[in-house]
């Protein structure tokens, strides 16, 4: 990087920092954290939730959005149960927050570990993570229909679907596709989304339902091909990602004839018993994070659905998502035996 770039970069961040320092008192009315805030990630280092948490930490400290430091702590044990239990036990402690992935719903349902989102206080939905059906670019399948027809023609247990973990979002989507298309995959669980993408490039599996950010590098390099996205509407990003396609050019699975949709919550929760002012503080904090250029760029790079919610609207969404997960997991036979 040449020097002029460096100085421009620094100058810009200074400007932003000064701007926020001037604006800060305006927000300083209600409650504020009194000691360093622990930001729990119920997943391992390097995964999607961890990346988002560390970006948030970076954006917040870079722009001076908080007076107290934010400390990211990974508690990944038991498919994230460790992290959720830690927050459940910290009832009434406003200096702790947690970022969620779908394991907020799937882990208690699949393992019977005693926690529920109702033990926590919902703060805000930051974004929704998308899922895309990917195949190796060297295969002849151009559309989701081509591929699923081939899977159907081959008979059950011939095509291999790779995914992250077991009885979690990737396998739930796989089961949903199987039901919608009347096919049967061999589902192979791996530890992380990056592993899955590389296994697909190496042709050790036939397809995956990776998040955009997990597979985008291989897509741009012409190794993987996206077939459809599991959302109601197409992703809104129209900038070309490869030479010919943008995220917007990927059809929804419904358009492609596979009536399945699934998005993953990237949301923030606090321990139970938080007061209105405490929740408002964090809602406000994340609203300001959403305004920053770094966050916007991160959203576009990962092709996130940027829906933001808080308050009763968010609680209602979480309630509905829990019911959906319970339904999907019951149908798939993934519920823990009592």
């Amino acid at each position, binding site marked *: *990087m040449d020097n002029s770039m460096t100085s421009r*970069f*620094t100058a810009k*961040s200074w400007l932003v920092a000064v701007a926020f320092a001037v604006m800060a008192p305006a927000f300083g009315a209600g409650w504020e954290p009194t000691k360093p805030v622990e930001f729990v990630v119920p997943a*391992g*280092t*390097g995964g999607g939730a*961890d*990346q988002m948490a*560390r970006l948030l*930490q*970076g*954006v917040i*400290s*870079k722009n001076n959005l908080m007076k107290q430091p934010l400390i*990211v*702590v*990974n*508690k*990944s*044990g*038991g*498919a994230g*149960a*460790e992290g959720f*239990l830690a927050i459940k036990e910290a009832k009434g402690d406003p200096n702790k927050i947690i970022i969620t992935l779908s394991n907020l719903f799937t882990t208690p349902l*699949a*393992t019977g*570990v005693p926690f529920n989102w109702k033990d926590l206080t919902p703060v805000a939905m930051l974004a929704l993570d998308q899922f895309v059906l990917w195949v190796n670019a060297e295969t002849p399948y151009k559309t989701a229909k081509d591929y699923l027809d081939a899977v159907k023609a081959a008979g059950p*247990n011939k095509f*291999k679907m790779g995914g992250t*973990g*077991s*009885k*979690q979002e990737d396998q739930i989507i796989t089961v949903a596709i199987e039901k919608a298309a009347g096919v049967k995959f*061999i*589902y*192979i*669980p*791996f*530890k*992380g989304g*990056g*592993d899955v*993408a*590389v296994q697909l*490039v*190496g042709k*050790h*599996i036939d397809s995956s339902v990776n998040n955009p*950010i997990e597979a*985008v*590098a*291989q897509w*741009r*390099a012409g190794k993987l091909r996206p077939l459809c996205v599991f959302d109601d509407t197409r992703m809104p990003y129209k900038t070309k990602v490869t030479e010919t396609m943008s995220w917007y050019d990927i059809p929804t699975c419904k358009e492609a004839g596979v009536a399945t949709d699934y998005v993953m919550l990237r949301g923030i929760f606090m321990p139970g018993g938080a007061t209105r002012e405490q929740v408002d503080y964090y809602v406000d904090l994340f609203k300001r994070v959403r305004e920053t250029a*770094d966050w916007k*760029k*991160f959203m576009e*790079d990962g092709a996130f659905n940027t829906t933001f919610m808080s308050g009763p609207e968010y609680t209602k969404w979480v309630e509905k998502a829990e019911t959906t997960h319970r339904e999907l997991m019951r149908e798939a036979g993934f519920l823990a035996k009592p």
Partner: protein
Amino acid sequence: MVELSALFHGFSVVLTPFNIMLMMIGIVLGVIIGVLPGLGGANGVAILLPLTFTMPPTSAIIMLSCIYWGALFGGAITSILFNIPGEPWSVATTFDGYPMAQQGRAGEALTAAFTSSFIGALVAVVMITFLAPLVAQFALQFGPPEFFSVYLLTFCSFIGMGKGSPFKTLAAMTLGFALAAVGMDTVTGQLRLIFGFTDLMRGFDFLIAVIGLFGIGEILLSMEEGLSFTGKTAKIDPKIVLETWKKLPRYWLTSIRSCLIGCWMGITPGGATPASFMSYGVAKRMSKDGDKFGTGQIEGVIAPETAAHAAGTSALLPMLALGIPGSPTAAVLLGGLLIWGLQPGPLLFVEQKDFVWGLIASMYLGNLAGLIIVLTCVPLFAAILRIPFSIIAPVIIVICAIGAYTVHNAMLDIWFMLLFGVIGYVFKKLDYPLAPLVLALVLGDRAEDSFRQSMLISQGEVSVFFSNWLVGGITALSLVMLFWPLISKVQSRLRAG
């Protein structure tokens, strides 16, 4: 020679006063992180990652990767001086490094460790410079059966080399597998062996077991022996570095072998820990002094350190070229790349030339700077052993406890550490080997996952482990390694008869 000109361009990117300062800071922080057990390279980098968001990406990755090199160097220090591996990949270094320190040869062991670390890293960087695209393709050949065969090879190259009863080795290894099975099972998504205790669901962390088994266990033994600690007779002489260097060229074959094992394991990505164990096992089998391994052989320090560093360095290659991390620290760095707006993957080498070649150039310079820094400190480190044991032991216990706590921020882990300390003491008293337990604990669940993934892929056909030349070759090699003691016995009998 496109690579060479690109590399020189990389050097020109790196060689600014600001970047060199960051490099030095990174190395020193890394050594400290490596020395403190439990903190570990991955955690250290994760903690410092947000600090780098305001820097340009090239400077940020230079500092973070230097922390990584520093941690690789630092891990050897406590292993040799106190039998406490600061990092998983330095466990194998304790086998001969600690006996050397006890014999008053700490300076020699440290010099050998640091120098071979440097050589391993250098070979790996040269490979990254010239073979990156080719090697990255090779990593794609690795599916679950290939991974399992690599783990099998690690276990097999280690089995049968123990001096004591093979059944004791087997018992220790089985206990390791049992401990590794506790917690979440990736393949079924169920919790195993937690008996209703939610605290057990994160499983037994390797680091806590190692801190207890080696560190606390050793202190218990020393206490029984009346607080005697022969290390204090160590002579402290800056010349020790040069004297050791004179000895090292003799072991060139071990070095080359270890470099190859290390590079291969780094790329595949098996990682530095299996590399160090496998390299130690192979060196013991191939060396003419193999029987004396474990009593303070300098070769027993060279082999694991060379391999660990070669693997740790080459682990960055699949991360850059494919976006798969070859080690936990690489996984955190990968997250950093994404946050700085760089997409790791096949196009990174094309689109971000400054960044990639700057990083590769910083690997050369960072390792060189690291070597100089740690070597000048050898007499200082060795001098630590002159402190009376009655003073240093409580300090070690406190550091161990902090380390065990840091892994998961859990008090329970300190109790586990003490429990493992007692187990380590009992194992030594009854002459059970600790190494197979540790090996099984660190690789057990990964081996199990890849075995069961293979079984899913092949729908239960074991023949999948011989389904192509690559996996078939590795599996066959492992079986040869496993039965080597038998084979050599039969051979010698035939010759005698």
